[in-house]
């Protein structure tokens, strides 16, 4: 079931279109990756979800209801451009931000102290933000984003500015929140992080959605049916025995064994390939080349650019 849905969102600014008819559907309890190059319209879409700005047209549903101002209390947002008041004390500031999300002062204080204890940063409570390092401030920001236990969390480039250790900690927390039932929208142009945590993705490019679906489906859809094999034996003998549907793309001779990159055409399966190889050479390794999200991203974007150029 979709926890959050945006249908046919259009947003125009004087001079340019930020979103032209984008629809997304975020299943409950999933991590939804919103991907796209810089300037594609991701941040505009996220600002519309946060009601910072409104769409020119289109419908938005939050947990089945049309999006209302009160829903901000159930949304947690960590923007790409994020910061804190430098001169304000950490504890005071966290309480202030929680109060703006509709929490009472007592409730906010109790929950904040629990989180500070969990991250072992209680001694920062009375420090001013300007005394903290950037990584420390990011931790505070993460806590204030999730403190009011939102049902929908939106992270815009969450890992930028985090060192690997804190990035890992953050990733762990995000997965934990998903397991507790939170629905998470995760916006990034860093494809590597997507592969590790996203269940669903949508790819936005030049204000349009050009790809959408579950992570597995997209991977399947963009299979290239290419394999690499390594073997001991005579290359010529193998070549002579391969069918016409198997195309040799690359050949490398190593010290110990030969390697080939093969493409299977016309529905040839990997089993067919194996049955043709095994009688003739000694197989050392056999791998399907699965395109990375980055490859898919580049490919889809290029195809799109090409089709735009043709028009």
């Amino acid at each position: 079931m979709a926890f959050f849905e945006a249908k046919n969102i259009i947003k125009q600014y004087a001079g340019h279109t930020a979103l032209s008819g984008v629809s997304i559907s975020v299943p409950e309890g999933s991590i939804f990756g919103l991907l796209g190059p810089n300037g594609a319209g991701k941040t505009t879409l996220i600002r519309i979800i946060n009601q910072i700005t409104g769409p020119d047209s289109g419908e938005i549903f939050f947990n089945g209801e049309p999006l209302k101002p009160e829903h901000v209390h159930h949304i947690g947002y960590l923007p790409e451009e994020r910061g804190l008041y430098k001169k304000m004390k950490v504890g005071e500031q966290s309480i202030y931000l929680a109060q703006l999300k509709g929490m009472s002062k007592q409730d906010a204080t109790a929950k904040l102290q629990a989180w500070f204890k969990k991250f072992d940063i209680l001694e920062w409570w009375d420090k001013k933000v300007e005394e903290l390092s950037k990584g420390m401030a990011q931790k505070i920001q993460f806590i204030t984003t999730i403190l009011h236990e939102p049902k929908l969390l939106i992270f815009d480039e969450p890992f930028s500015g985090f060192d690997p250790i804190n990035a890992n900690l953050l990733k762990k927390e995000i997965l934990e929140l998903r397991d507790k039932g939170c629905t998470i929208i995760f916006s990034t142009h860093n494809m590597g992080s997507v592969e590790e945590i996203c269940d669903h993705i949508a790819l936005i490019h030049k204000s349009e959605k050009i790809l959408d679906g579950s992570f597995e489906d997209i991977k399947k859809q963009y299979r290239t049916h290419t394999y690499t094999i390594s073997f001991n034996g005579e290359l010529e003998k193998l070549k002579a025995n391969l069918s016409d549907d198997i195309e040799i793309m690359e050949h490398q001779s190593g010290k110990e064994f030969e390697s080939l990159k093969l493409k299977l055409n016309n529905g040839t399966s990997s089993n067919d390939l194996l049955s043709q190889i095994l009688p003739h050479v000694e197989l050392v390794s056999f791998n399907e080349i699965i395109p990375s999200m980055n490859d898919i991203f580049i490919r889809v974007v290029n195809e799109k650019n090409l089709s735009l150029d043709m028009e």
Partner: protein
Amino acid sequence: MNKILIIIQREYLSRVKKKSFLLLTFLTPILIAGIYAFMIWMMMKDDTEKRTIGVINESELVEPVQSKDYTTFEYLPNTSFEEAKKMLDTKGYYALLKIPKDIMESQSAELFSFKQVTMEVKSEAGSQIRNYIEGIKRSKIIAEANMPDLEQKLAETKTPISVKTIKFGEDGEVKESSTEIAMGLGFAMSFIIYMFIFMYGVQVMRGVIEEKSNRIIEVIISSVKPFQLMMGKIVGVAMVGLTQFLMWVILTGAIITIGSAIFLPGLDSETIQHASSVSDLQSAGQGINQAQLDMMHEVLGTFDMGYIFSILGAFVFFFLAGYLLYSALFAAVGSAVDNETETQQFMLPISLPLVLALYIGMAVAKNPEGSLAFWGSIIPLTSPIVMLVRIPYGVPVWELLLSMTLLVASFIFVTWVAAKIYRTGILMYGKKVSYKEIWKWLRYHR
């Protein structure tokens, strides 16, 4: 708790707790009291310094100047100018007064000294010689005219005239009024408003820039509407300003009261001794001369309670409405830039009407009835300052109502426009913004 109240609370507390606020709040009254004390000290000091002045009299006049109060004149007969000059050092004379031979014709004398002679000594010497010569001339005329009682008759021609200014009230009642006081009061109030708008308007602008450059803005406006944040900031800063102003008034009053009780004890005990009757209190003098006493009566005559309350009410109204109008503009400017150095190009249209209003106010203080006064106090951008100059002189009710209505209407309009600029501007990072760009923002719908 309402979110706008939470914002107001933070804006207020974060500023009031700052060291710079506390310093300014507590030092300013000390400074004002210090200047006040210095002035009193200067007045008292002048009275007590004894000065001796050597006199070289080359004329035929016989001792035309006489020692008086703290100034002593010593005649130096048969002394050359050069010798007398040396005596400035040896005898410690403050100055040398040279009365030339032809004083009756040239009508001028000379004062010599190593440092600048005080006004007091100069006018004392001048007036004594003048009176002496006038006396000689007059007795000569009296003697020649050969008329009995002429001296007394001449004396009777002296008629001191004092001009009282009286104003007709709305209800036909006649009120005694004081032009100087009305002018001083009006100008003081308008200047306070001018300062307040500038000081705290800029604080609003800085606050907006701070939120933008800290990058906390997007976090906050995902929880509250940009308009709530803007108004919360404007109201919070206004309360800081009012707090500071109130503290200044209270602290300055307290310091001066306590200070005069400690440093002017004579005055105080005298006051207590004679406190039994008001007339005694007045005759005790308290160092107040007759002119000051007259002035005080005049002030009391000018200010009946209704008048005071109407002025105070108008002050608070124009004070707040003027600040609200301008601070919305300051907030809009803050939202359009990334740092304070970029604000200059947008500050001109805000500071120009403000400074202009102050100059119009100065002109209006001299002529509160002209067309400049009328338009200056009706047009909303200048009215908070110019109207305050006019109010102590009395302003027709319809003009006052028109000015107030226009001010409120334009405050609402300007805030609406500023909010549109603000909500777009706060999300624009690292972009050089022009007026054209801002015009575009105005036409965005949410």
